[in-house]
């Protein structure tokens, strides 16, 4: 595997800086992770971290509304941002000679977002975000599966209990005061990681970073991290049936799991791939190809760090297949893996796929920068980007058995069945 070069620095104000030089293409990725996500939201403010992310594109002291996007695009760059449970990231990839432009834009909004805020902008982006929710959740078949699942896997008072997109009611209630408070609390250099990957001279890049970010004051009163503690097991199975406008029944299973970053998480990562990654995976081979029970299968392990992660999967029933039969066959495969562990061919397959996927992902400087920011923000350990393949390859059958046995079990499971509404009526 190629070794991702890493150089770490920190500014006086606490901004953590990671540099990874790669001059192959004349381009540079500028990536910022703020250590704030929807888990930091207070009751009645769900969806605010994400709405705030939208406000970061509405201009700052020296940038007009809409210009952040336009300036980067006109410079030949691509950019976006995303918000999730643990964090918010902002990312630009530009021609290398426009590096300073991206640093200036990111610093301007980190330093001086508030002078540009208006009620009109907030109202506009509130409407945009509500339409994002309608589009991705409310008007989509099975669209609310993840918010239903989070609400069932995590207790009411846990920060992962509510979805990142938030509720319409809470979005309606968001105010300019909320914007001011959130910015002052979380958008500080000592709560962020800045990563550069691509074509730059290290000395010049550091000089530019200092020029633009040194002046931004830290927040001396960063709040303590939210209490994420939660029992490792749910204690009993929760089953729900959801009638929806869907043509095919679909079953979702979810379990509390060890957090991202732990050895047990790595073992579940391997288990997830043995079960669901590729056409030779156990669930695809049996449910889709051999027994014609399922239209599709998907296994998803959430890379989140607070208290407990989620090991989830879904299977969509073929027409005429009783969901109970599909569920029973799915559980048989899960239990077989927990009992017997993966075979050598299983491990050989998923390790080689994982290695090729890692190489493909790290080919792109934007992805490399994002992973460096992620490992720094979540674990203060950017070098973990170079350990992904070895950590994965170190998982043996005993660890898979142990991790599956500890988490992927009936007394730690949410089972949600979407069924066609007319059939349920």
């Amino acid at each position, binding site marked *: 595997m190629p070794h991702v070069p890493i150089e770490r620095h920190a500014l006086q104000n606490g901004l953590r800086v990671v540099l990874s030089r790669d001059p192959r293409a004349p381009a540079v990725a500028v990536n910022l992770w703020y250590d704030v996500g929807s888990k930091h939201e207070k009751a009645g403010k769900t969806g605010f971290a994400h709405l705030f992310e939208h406000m970061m594109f509405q201009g700052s002291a020296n940038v007009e509304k809409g210009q952040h*996007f336009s300036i980067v695009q006109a410079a030949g760059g691509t950019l976006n941002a995303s918000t999730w449970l643990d964090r918010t990231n902002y990312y630009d990839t530009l021609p290398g000679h426009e590096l300073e432009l991206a640093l200036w834009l990111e610093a301007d909004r980190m330093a001086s977002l508030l002078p540009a805020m208006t009620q009109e902008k907030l109202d506009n982006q509130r409407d945009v975000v509500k339409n994002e929710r309608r589009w991705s959740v409310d008007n989509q078949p099975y669209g609310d599966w993840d918010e239903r699942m989070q609400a069932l896997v995590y207790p009411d008072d846990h920060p992962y209990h509510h979805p990142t997109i938030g509720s319409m009611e809470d979005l309606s209630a968001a105010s300019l005061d909320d914007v001011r408070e959130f910015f002052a609390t979380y958008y500080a250099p000592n709560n962020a990681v800045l990563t550069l990957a691509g074509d730059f001279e290290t000395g010049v890049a550091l000089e530019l970073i200092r020029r633009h970010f040194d002046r931004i004051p830290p927040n001396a009163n960063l709040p303590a991290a939210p209490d994420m503690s939660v029992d490792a097991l749910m204690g009993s199975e929760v089953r729900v049936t959801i009638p929806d406008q869907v043509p095919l029944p679909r079953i979702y299973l979810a379990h509390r799991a060890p957090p991202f970053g732990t050895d047990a998480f790595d073992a579940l990562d391997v288990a997830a791939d043995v079960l669901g990654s590729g056409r030779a995976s156990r669930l695809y081979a049996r449910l889709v190809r051999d027994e014609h029970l399922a239209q599709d299968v998907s296994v998803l392990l959430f890379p989140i760090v607070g208290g407990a992660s989620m090991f989830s999967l879904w299977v969509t029933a073929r027409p005429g297949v009783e969901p109970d039969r599909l569920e029973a066959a799915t559980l048989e495969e899960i239990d077989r893996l927990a009992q017997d562990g993966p075979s050598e061919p299983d491990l050989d*397959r998923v390790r080689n796929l994982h290695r090729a996927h890692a190489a*493909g992902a790290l080919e792109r400087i934007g992805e490399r920068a994002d992973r460096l920011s992620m490992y720094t923000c979540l674990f203060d350990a950017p070098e973990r980007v170079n350990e992904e393949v070895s950590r994965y390859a170190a998982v043996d059958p005993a660890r898979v058995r142990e991790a599956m046995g500890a988490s992927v079990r009936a007394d730690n499971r949410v089972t949600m069945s979407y069924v066609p509404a007319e059939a349920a009526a």
Partner: protein
Amino acid sequence: MTGRPAATAPRPYRFPDFVRHELANGLRVWLVPLPDRELVSVHLLTDAGAASEDEPQAGVAALTAQLLVTGTQRLDAGEFAETTERLGIEVGSESSWDSARAAFTALEDKLSEGLGLLSEMVRTPRFDEREFERLKAERLNDILQARADPGRLADESFLREVFSAGTPYGRLSAGTPDSVESLTVEATRAFHASRYAPNVAHLIVSGAIDPDAALANIEAHFGDWAGTGPGHRTIEPAQRGGRRVVLVDRPGSVQSELRVGHLGIGRGHPRYFAAIVMAALLGGVFGSRLNRRLREELGFTYGARCAFDPRRASGPFTATAAVQTEVTADAIRELIGQLEGIRAEPPAEAELTEVRDFLVGVFPLRFESTTGIAAAIEPLAVYGLPDDYWQTYRSNVESVSTEDVAAAAGELIRPDEALVLLTGDAARVREEIEAAALGPLEVVPAA
């Protein structure tokens, strides 16, 4: 430090050089050596897309392509999946209107084995009856799922309504429920036997290769591929006339999915570059007119955009937005207003410069991955674009003037002939759409 910083001198970038060969059997080979990579991407294209199938067999091209990964004469479906994935290779195989493609990306030391498996699956596929019936059922199920999804329902309905009856482009390239239902495994075998042949195929390899060694490798795996295939049929798309509004009723929808457009351009259109620059300005970048107005000013949508879909013949031009139900008629008016606006008020130099600079500046970023570079070679192979296409791409974009954009908009954007198609809750939006007098309205149930 508050002013916008100046850029330093740009470092030149050149699209990677490639070499072309033709094997004795007619297979055309494109090699793109990228010595600093550890991956290699292989894309095999054949002239076996949906444009090559007869209408009663619509969908046979797609099913044939998908069947290629379900086993060879030597390996059954499970063994083929196991064998490829244990090499870290996931083979994809699919078809579009103008070609079928089998492709994979692998670590460079797996190239030879990967080429061998690719050759085996394309030349000696199994066409197992049980696998055929499975894929056929999955395709029919996917159509069911698509019609429950408002965006996919709108896409399919738009194609059906915008083209004249009899134009193949009026359906999805993967076929309709009726046509797919009638397909047999023999039909896919016959389609494969007549359409998968070296003289109508291109093999593109980009990444960590030594060109001579790669060519020898390809010769070893594909040199004895025999047979000849015919070209594709000619499609002459025609549009149904005049402005019409079609409302596909989807009760309970909290948004309306809008698709507004008409016949667009083919890949060989003389105004191709003016058209793509104009479309980017109108609805291709974040600050485009459509997105700025419908999202950033009005908050009607999470995003509004538009694009041409150029194929060998003229595909559609479509403007797209999902808008909240309450503002449906206003949003349609605004969207049509932007189509009228690009004709009435072509861009000034500054607006155009921003878009041209984006397309030119972003050029190197499009070719970061080995598979991205292989994909960039595809239109050269499929549409016969000149070998220097990518070397001249940026100057072609840069030479598009405000006059060119105005002329392209005048010729290619025709709001008076646009079909306005939406999926939404008719009980809530029908009345206001009628009142808006956007054109004759037809309300149809969701299929």
